[in-house]
């Protein structure tokens, strides 16, 4: 757990605002924003998968709902209020409301998934969430208002003068991204370490015992889903307003798997580890990109470096075999996470 969470939050936000002056070229800027978004995604998934011990494979679906809901506000609603205003304050407000709409849209979807999921456990739950994620993608693909398979462009942004010419820069920047990442980390850690939040851990550690103690496990599971989905939706909103283009095919099963890999690599339930894992796994493909360009490496190795999914999968398997608690996970926490009756079963 993180000591002095409020202090850490303030430091995080200050860091985020400071980061916006960092002399990053657009490529590194892109990666940095990607890291921030991944952190939000992974930390929120960690609430569901790590702290509450459920297994969701549909996080990409929530992110998609968030991305599309926030884009709907920016594309369809905001123009009526903003008109031709170039005020940064007004635009920031519009962006904030778009992000919140994304968050609440996704939270609603989380509620829809969470309620039926109460009856399911483990692998069934994993498949159902996967199914929900796919259904969301199929629906988006068939909805003409949001561009269907053509994708949806988001043209709004801050008016700015760059190198002497006026241009529109995306709403999402490093300050927004990392401030929201800090808030996500703060909310999730405070929630889990609060007296109320111990309930999440009891659901994970032993559901039957928790219920016997009078804990409403159902409620904790749904809460975890809703809060997790809310932040996934925020991540989706940030993503939408950074790439300024959404396509349903971008929110597929593989994105959910990437988020799961971050949580597992970081160690289920370890917030700090998950943050680090999100950062590493976002930078890894870019690093592999340069590895694939090294002429002195044997060609087959460069080919494999180009195919990052092979490496991801090997990482998953080897990690599960050797360190199922993740690289930075707390061994004891994981042992606690495994109720004896499951440990005995084949």
């Amino acid at each position, binding site marked *: 757990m*993180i*000591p002095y969470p409020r202090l*850490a939050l303030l*430091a*995080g936000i200050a*860091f985020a605002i400071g*980061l916006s002056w*960092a*002399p*990053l*070229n*657009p*490529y*590194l*800027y*892109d*990666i*940095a924003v*990607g*890291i921030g978004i991944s952190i939000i995604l992974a930390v929120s998934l960690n609430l569901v998968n790590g702290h509450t011990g459920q297994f969701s494979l549909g996080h990409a679906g929530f992110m998609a709902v968030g991305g599309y809901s926030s884009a709907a506000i920016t594309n369809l609603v905001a123009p009526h209020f903003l008109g031709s205003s170039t005020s940064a304050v007004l635009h920031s407000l519009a962006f904030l409301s778009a992000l919140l709409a994304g968050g609440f849209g996704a939270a609603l979807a989380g509620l829809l998934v969470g309620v039926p999921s109460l009856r399911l456990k483990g692998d069934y739950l994993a498949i159902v969430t996967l199914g929900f994620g796919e259904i969301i993608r199929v629906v988006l*693909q*068939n909805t003409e208002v949001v561009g*269907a*398979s*053509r*994708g949806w*462009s988001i043209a709004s942004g801050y008016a700015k003068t*760059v190198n002497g*010419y006026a*241009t*529109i*820069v995306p709403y999402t920047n490093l300050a927004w991204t*990392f401030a929201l990442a*800090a808030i996500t*980390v703060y909310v999730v*850690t405070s929630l889990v370490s609060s007296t109320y939040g111990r309930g999440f851990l009891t659901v994970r550690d032993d559901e039957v015992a928790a219920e016997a103690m009078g804990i409403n496990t159902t409620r904790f599971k749904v809460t975890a889903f809703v809060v997790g989905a809310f932040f996934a939706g925020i991540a989706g909103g940030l*993503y939408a307003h950074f*790439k*300024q*283009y959404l*396509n349903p*095919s*971008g929110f597929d099963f*593989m994105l959910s798997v990437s988020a799961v890999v971050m949580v597992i690599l970081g160690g289920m339930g370890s*917030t*700090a580890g998950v*943050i*680090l894992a999100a*950062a590493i796994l976002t*930078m890894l493909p*870019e690093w592999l*990109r340069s590895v*694939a360009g090294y002429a002195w490496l044997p060609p087959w190795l460069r080919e494999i470096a*180009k*195919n*990052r999914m092979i490496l991801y999968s090997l990482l998953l398997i080897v990690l599960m075999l050797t360190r199922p608690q993740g690289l930075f996970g707390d061994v004891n926490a994981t042992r606690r996470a495994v109720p004896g009756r499951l440990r005995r079963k084949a």
Partner: protein
Amino acid sequence: MARNIITLIAATVCASLSTWNLMAQEELKVGEFASLTGGSASFGQSSHKGTALAIDEINNAGGLLGKKVKLITEDDQSQAGQPATIVRKLISGDKVVAVLGEVASSKSLEAAPICQQNKIPMISPASTNPKVTEVGDYVFRVCFIDPFQGTVMAKFAAGKGWKKVAVLTDVKQDYSVGLAQFFKEGVSKGGGEIVKEQSYSTGDKDFKAQLTSIKATKPEAIFVPGYYAEVALIARQARQLGIKAPLLGGDGWVGESLLPVGGAALDGCFFSCHFSADDEAPVVQDFVKKFRAKYNGTPDDMAALGYDSAMILADAIKRADGTDSAKLRDAIAATKDYPAVTGKITLNEQRNATKSAVILGIESGKFKFVESVAP
């Protein structure tokens, strides 16, 4: 703890920052982004081969402006989200003078705003969706657009006397949906009738349900504006169900596995595309010869368009006599009657290529040139 980690991330980011400034500048760098792996890799690989061939040829002829041209190719793994990152890398990391790519319109749509914001010209070889070049005045393409292609096939169907037409669309592909839309408009204008609309998704293998319901409406032709992998199976299953109507399609049909999988089921079908390797024009035969020598295979549409995109860029750099981005943009925009492999290319005010489409038919397992349709 969280603070420590964020500081650590910042340190890592800054460390990787420093490596970028050591790039040498004696070469002329051209960026390319393509799907070299993943779902649409076969198109990406093809167009990349064409582009690479063009750059080789330019360098063998002494390069441009006295410098060698270096093609920097990045793979977007057919994934949404990747093109934006890659193009930012190409522009700010590698400092390329122009960007070539992509085949899929959805990928080009993602990269185009970034090229526009950075005022770096981008030439797409084969993105046929009208929206791509609408992004801004730095975005060009060397292919025709969906409205033209859809209309060409609608007119072709009308010319053959096929009035009752069914449409089978791939809803997962913007390309297919767009083409179907313009085809339907064309058919209605030509006095024909769309008797049935059905759809599928990329990766499906079973189309019997769609085809059975199409069969019940007794169409005279079926328009299938999808990609070759599915089209071949659709043709087989249509014949198995006893549907005799010919299938019509667009440039997505061109692919290595179309004929082996489709076999005899495709006989009598027609599709529009950008070029035919059997075209006897010297510029085409010359290209085919060079392509064979380098890759030991016959070039397809995507390879020809990839080649053309690089050649048009090279031509513009020569005319602009420099790589100043505004001048280069103007030079590309001024491209007129360039004798490209895929036909004479003139870029219009919407920065789209106006050129003719080729209609190919399939007869006993071979492509056969039918006609060339001028815009």
